[in-house]
């Protein structure tokens, strides 16, 4: 029983100019939802099936030239966790959802407060007092309903992280203290999950990718001697810095999921908006 899915998708497709002006058969958000409703399948599954039929959900048309058909399908099939949904995490969630990373695990124990509003893209005045992960889940549903979100309104700890990271392929460190970040590095390493770290203070940000077994963050924060907080305690966290660093983190997630590009592994990318300095420093040795 059921509908002929391929036929249902092909019938609704229309040609649009894609990369280099070549025609690409696309499906509008409304037609994809129609097929999902008729077939009883989830929207994410319908989009994956469409890509297998060489039909592109139109929302990904401007991804195609860079990510390709296989890359887009891979993103939709993948699962990424974002730990911390504040300044960095909010922009990361926005970027991953728009790109079509198919499953997101969101973890943050905080609710929105007024002093988040200078930079945290997911929060509006209507959201004050609401859990950040709830607001994030609604945002994703509004932007890209194909993305399946599991949200946990809890503080990530050494005890709950192993369960939260089950089935996760990449984890994004968007936390806000050295201690919490080191705990995440430890658990992610034990679970063999690659970690994309980003941190900010004032107009400076840093990004690195930690593969299982690497202890890049221990070298940066001093392991057990890690300070309670960093320079952000004095400088705060103005809007441009999380935007910039989150963008780099989203790109690292793509590279990990799709297996291309040069990872920021074992090196710290520093971005200093005060001076315009952008430079990679080797942390674990090897080529700089």
């Amino acid at each position, binding site marked *: 029983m059921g509908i002929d899915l391929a036929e249902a998708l092909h019938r609704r497709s229309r040609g649009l100019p894609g990369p280099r002006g070549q025609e690409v058969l696309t499906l509008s958000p409304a037609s994809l939802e129609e097929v999902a409703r008729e077939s009883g399948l989830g929207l994410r599954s319908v989009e994956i099936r469409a890509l297998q039929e060489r039909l592109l959900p139109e929302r990904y048309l401007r991804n195609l030239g860079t990510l390709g058909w296989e890359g887009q399908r891979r993103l939709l099939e993948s699962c990424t966790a974002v730990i*911390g949904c*504040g*300044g*960095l*995490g909010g922009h990361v969630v926005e970027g991953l959802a728009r790109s079509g990373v198919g499953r997101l695990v969101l973890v943050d124990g905080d609710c929105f407060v007024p002093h988040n509003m200078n930079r945290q893209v997911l929060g509006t005045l209507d959201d004050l007092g609401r859990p950040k992960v709830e607001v994030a889940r609604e945002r994703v549903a509004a932007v890209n309903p194909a993305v399946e979100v599991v949200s946990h309104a809890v503080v990530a700890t050494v005890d709950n992280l192993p369960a939260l990271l089950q089935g996760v392929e990449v984890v994004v460190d*968007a*936390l*806000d*203290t*050295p201690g919490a*970040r080191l705990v995440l590095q430890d658990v992610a390493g034990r679970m063999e999950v690659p970690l994309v770290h*980003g*941190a*900010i*203070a*004032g*107009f*400076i*940000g*840093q990004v690195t990718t930690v593969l299982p077994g690497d202890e890049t963050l221990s*070298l*940066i*924060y*001093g392991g057990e001697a*890690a*300070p309670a*907080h*960093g*320079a*952000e305690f*004095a*400088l*705060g*966290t103005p809007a441009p810095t*999380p935007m910039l660093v989150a963008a780099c983190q989203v790109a690292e997630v793509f590279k990990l999921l799709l297996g291309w590009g040069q990872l920021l592994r074992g090196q710290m990318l*520093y971005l*200093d908006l*005060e*001076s*315009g*300095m952008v430079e990679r*420093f*080797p*942390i674990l040795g090897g080529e*700089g």
Partner: protein
Amino acid sequence: MAAPLIEVEVRLYATLRRYRAGNPPDGGERVLLPAGSAVLDLLAGLGIPAKEVQTVFVNRRVMAAEAVLQAGDRVDLFPAIAGG
């Protein structure tokens, strides 16, 4: 007899810049110090509390603050950066 002087290039970031108003963001500040000085001696000379320096790079390699400097070294000094 005083030790001969060596010159190193120092770049400060974020909060550390406030200790050296003239520290140019590009190219760094040239600092003279006695041969055999360690990064810790450099910090003392610049008036930067060692506990505020989290990561020391000498010629773009991570080093301990006890590392002895050589003439012409490039020293990049960062505080901890941990905000989100």
